[in-house]
């Protein structure tokens, strides 16, 4: 588990979580980026940029 940095709600984590992955807080809807996995550390995810895509 990790706490949402926006609302303090708890987020469940998958076993195969990766640094760089995005988590959605089910309580407040914030998008959080996983910075570290051991221990898990999150921050607000970057906002969408115009050149993002595939």
């Amino acid at each position, binding site marked *: 588990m990790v706490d949402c940095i926006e609302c303090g709600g708890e987020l469940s984590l998958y076993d195969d979580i*990766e640094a760089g992955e995005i988590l959605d807080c089910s309580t407040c809807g914030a998008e959080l980026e996983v910075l570290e996995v051991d221990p898990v550390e999150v921050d607000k995810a970057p906002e969408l940029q115009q050149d993002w895509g*595939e």
Partner: protein
Amino acid sequence: MVSVKVGLCYSRIRHDEKLLLSALRERGHAVEKIDVRDQQFDLADPPAALAEVDVLLDRCLATSRSTYLTQFAAAYGIPVVNSAETATTCADKVETSLALEAAGVPTPETKVAFTTGAALEAIEAFGYPCVLKPVVGSWGRLLAKIDSRSAAEAILEHKETLGHYEHSVFYVQAFVDKPGRDIRVLACDGEPVAAMCRSGEHWVTNAANGAKTQEFAVEDDLAALVAQASAAVGGGLLGIDLMETGTGYTVHEINHTVEFKALNDAVAVDVPGAVVDWLESTVETAAVPAGGD
């Protein structure tokens, strides 16, 4: 297959990257995750994270990062998938259209203009509806289907006011009256791995916008066109998007950091497994020094 050290370059780990990471690790390949946001690129010497890999896999979410990363990799002599040539061509719709046209690949009729006045003339020449797209962008963002002159005038004014110079490169295309769906083919150096059609009520039938997906059988004529389109942009791991015109296909987009989670869910093929198969053969063919056996 020997074990390969793969540098997976990213700024966000999407479901697609997780699928690739799993497939690579299951094969016993060493994977170095390289967050490109942490790197500094010298003109002559690679950053330490890049120096020790056998091959770089460009999975950058940002097109600008992807194009520069691949160019630096080429300058350092580090094999990179996809190549800088492919990334540069596919990152920009004008470059893609020119490459397809030069190769004789059917693609929607397109005009490019640099002022709102010239763009309006191009739009009027196409008639309504026609389509206006940003030259860089993905996921169906900022696409405009223009149904009237008044709509064209408003959209052009908005684009000019947005500020970024790219929005003043007006990429105008004929509207293709497709049968409610388009087709995505994932191909490795022109060889189709799997394909799906994407259907929806909206004129933009993009999986990212919620289109329904279904496996699509690749017949010989489509496979030949995919090979031709792939070669036109430099080859590699590509997502080639086509529309049915009634008499054949037209290629409207080629994606060089292709997302495939929706495709993987829609088809029976193990898409990430097939991508890793191709990556292994690419490394072997290039005789890249491998990390062990």
